């Protein structure tokens, strides 16, 4: 795929800051829909068995789950237009049950589509330049990126052009369509990691060298799941011109040496762990040196053309701070809380980045009704150049809001149940669908998130507690990122009952760490008590400015464990 000349690609009301399909892109997705329609017809007629059909449906993001089929829609690097968000809402109403679930991979999942309707859904998505290709299967999955891309003050460079470059390179990459296992890539271009690059198969960090040249620190072998690992640096500074070839070399090494005899040992993290990063680096460098790199030669003009799609929108020249914002905060405390917690600094004076929490107290993390999706689409057009982002934390970001407009935006969000001021706080919980929807799950995760959220429903208490990442998975596959939760919760089955293992000290950022197990599993009913005890202990022990993870790191795991052991009668219940 190639990007298109902006001069001929304009559409009325099209946001200026997102990639748009050219004819090649549109034809490719359209052909894929037609192909899948035929495959579905052949399945329904009996010409294809389920065994024959399964790979086809998975290549189009269609799973069979606990209660129904599930369709996973790709949202490349989490960027959405208002038009696309409205289409997601329309699909939810027409072919699903009026809601969608935003996931930790910046995708959207429909939980109730019918097989017979799926080709129509894909066709409807294609009309707004969306699809479900490579949201499943042993291929390179949806490339994710910092959800504050292009607007964060700490950014070296917007990671989206790189992510789009990688999307085009990896889409239907014939050599990498049947890897040993799925493969996940994340990109960040900022000083703070909001894309969790160290727990991806490949993590890319945009960096600048001493001469001012932009390049990439390349990390390989991170990942969660059954065997969690923090990624290791395989290339300290890969110049942009070498990026595709270097990634091609990594994938080739993985494709060749990754295990295929055991799916639990097939991810690149296992290869890196077993061979060691030095051997992997040597293999990658040897492949890079030996390969014909002409096919991956960097075309600066093409990169710049893609980057032009992500050019800043037409910002106004504004004062750095808004007088009306200050007044509104004084007048409306709930709004002030929202601004303090969910609104972040923007690189352009007078603007702000707004995180819209999809974690209302007692709600289902990541779920949005079709009406809420439409409100978000409207809000993005009124207050943000028609652009939205999905975060890996299952929230929605409005990246270009004028400070002067924050109160009007908040009022609009509040009326739609979207103004929960908990971004980054204890009730902003990442949770996978768990056994309420997922066939692989061994326990429920959403009710645990709801119970914790309700336990800490006092928002002023949440603010006193401060930043605290609680992450919950309903099985060992770790879709809820529990390993990198400051408090992680893993649902398992123990003697025919749901049981929850608690971990502490996980961190998904540049200071990444995998959480340590606290003790034996607890029941669902005990989880909120355990979390509350941990939080209380942290509040008693913390020093000025410390978040939970800081206190845990300073005083050590054993002391947290000890306090619960006392609570839990010699650890019997924890």
């Amino acid at each position, binding site marked *: 795929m190639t990007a298109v000349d902006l001069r001929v690609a304009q559409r009325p009301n099209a946001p200026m800051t997102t990639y748009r399909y050219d004819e090649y892109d549109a034809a490719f997705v359209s052909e894929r829909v037609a192909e899948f329609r035929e495959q579905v017809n052949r399945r*329904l007629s009996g010409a294809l068995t389920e065994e024959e059909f399964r790979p086809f449906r998975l290549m189009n993001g269609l799973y069979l789950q606990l*209660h*129904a*089929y599930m369709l996973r829609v790709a949202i490349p690097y989490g960027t959405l237009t208002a038009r696309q968000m409205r289409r997601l809402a329309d699909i939810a109403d027409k072919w699903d049950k009026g809601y969608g679930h935003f996931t930790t991979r910046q995708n959207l999942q429909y939980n109730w589509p019918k*097989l017979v309707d799926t080709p129509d859904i894909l066709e409807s998505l294609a009309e707004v330049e969306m699809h479900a290709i490579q949201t499943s299967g042993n291929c390179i999955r949806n490339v994710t990126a910092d959800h504050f891309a292009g607007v964060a003050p700490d950014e070296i460079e917007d990671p989206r052009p790189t992510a789009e470059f990688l999307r085009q390179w990896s889409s239907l990459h014939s050599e990498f369509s049947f890897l040993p296992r799925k493969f996940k890539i994340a990109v960040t271009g900022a000083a703070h990691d909001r894309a969790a690059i160290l727990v991806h198969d490949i993590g890319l960090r945009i960096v600048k060298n001493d001469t001012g040249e932009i390049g990439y620190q390349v990390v390989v072998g991170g990942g969660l799941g059954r065997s969690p690992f923090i990624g290791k640096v395989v290339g300290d500074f890969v110049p942009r011109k070498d990026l595709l070839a270097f990634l091609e070399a990594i994938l080739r090494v993985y494709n060749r040496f990754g295990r295929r005899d055991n799916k639990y040992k097939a991810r690149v993290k296992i290869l890196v762990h077993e061979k060691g990063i030095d051997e992997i680096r040597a293999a990658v460098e040897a492949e890079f040196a030996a390969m014909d790199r002409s096919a991956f030669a960097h075309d600066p003009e093409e990169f710049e053309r893609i980057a032009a799609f992500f050019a800043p929108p037409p910002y106004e020249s504004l004062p750095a701070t808004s007088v009306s914002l200050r007044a509104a905060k004084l007048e409306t405390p709930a709004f002030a809380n929202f601004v303090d917690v969910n609104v972040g600094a923007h690189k352009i004076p007078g603007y702000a980045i707004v995180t819209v929490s999809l974690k209302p107290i007692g709600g289902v993390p990541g779920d949005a009704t079709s009406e809420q999706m439409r409100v978000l689409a409207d809000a993005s057009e009124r207050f943000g150049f028609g652009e939205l982002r999905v975060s890996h934390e299952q929230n929605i970001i409005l990246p270009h809001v004028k400070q002067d407009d924050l109160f009007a935006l908040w009022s609009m969000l509040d009326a739609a149940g979207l103004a929960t001021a908990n971004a980054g706080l204890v009730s902003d919980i990442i949770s996978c669908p768990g056994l*309420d*929807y997922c066939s692989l799950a061994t326990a429920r995760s959403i009710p645990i998130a709801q119970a914790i959220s309700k336990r800490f429903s006092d928002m002023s208490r949440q603010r006193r507690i401060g930043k605290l990442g609680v992450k919950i998975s309903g099985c060992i596959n770790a879709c809820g990122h529990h390993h990198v939760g400051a408090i992680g919760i893993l649902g398992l089955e123990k003697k*025919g009952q749901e049981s929850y293992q608690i971990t502490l000290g996980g961190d998904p950022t540049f200071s990444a760490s995998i959480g340590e197990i606290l003790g034996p599993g607890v029941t669902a009913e005990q989880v909120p008590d355990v979390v509350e005890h941990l939080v209380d202990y942290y509040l008693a022990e913390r020093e000025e400015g410390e978040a939970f993870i800081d206190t845990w790191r300073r005083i050590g795991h054993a002391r947290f464990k000890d306090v619960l052991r006392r609570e839990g009668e010699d650890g019997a219940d924890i």
Partner: protein
Amino acid sequence: MPVFKHPQILIASNLTDGEVVFLGPSGWERDHRRARVARKADEATALEDLGKRDISANRVVDVYLADVEIGSDGAPTPLHYREKMRVKGPSVRLDLGKQAGEGAL
């Protein structure tokens, strides 16, 4: 052959819409209370054979036997919490699934 400890019913997913279905006396039912119950190993095997037949006929997918207990009304209820969930719907959305009257319950 595995030890037969509990009565069993045959669970599957309907091919066209993915809904959970149960093999009843005269075909696939959307209400687990109408499921045929195998009380012996050979009856369970017979249920499985019928399931394989309907997999081949492209009516259902993902067919398996699940342990149940029999209530005072004679209706089967799954023993494991996973299947307890499947006969109702998501525990976090009581307005969805069979429990909401979307399938039979």
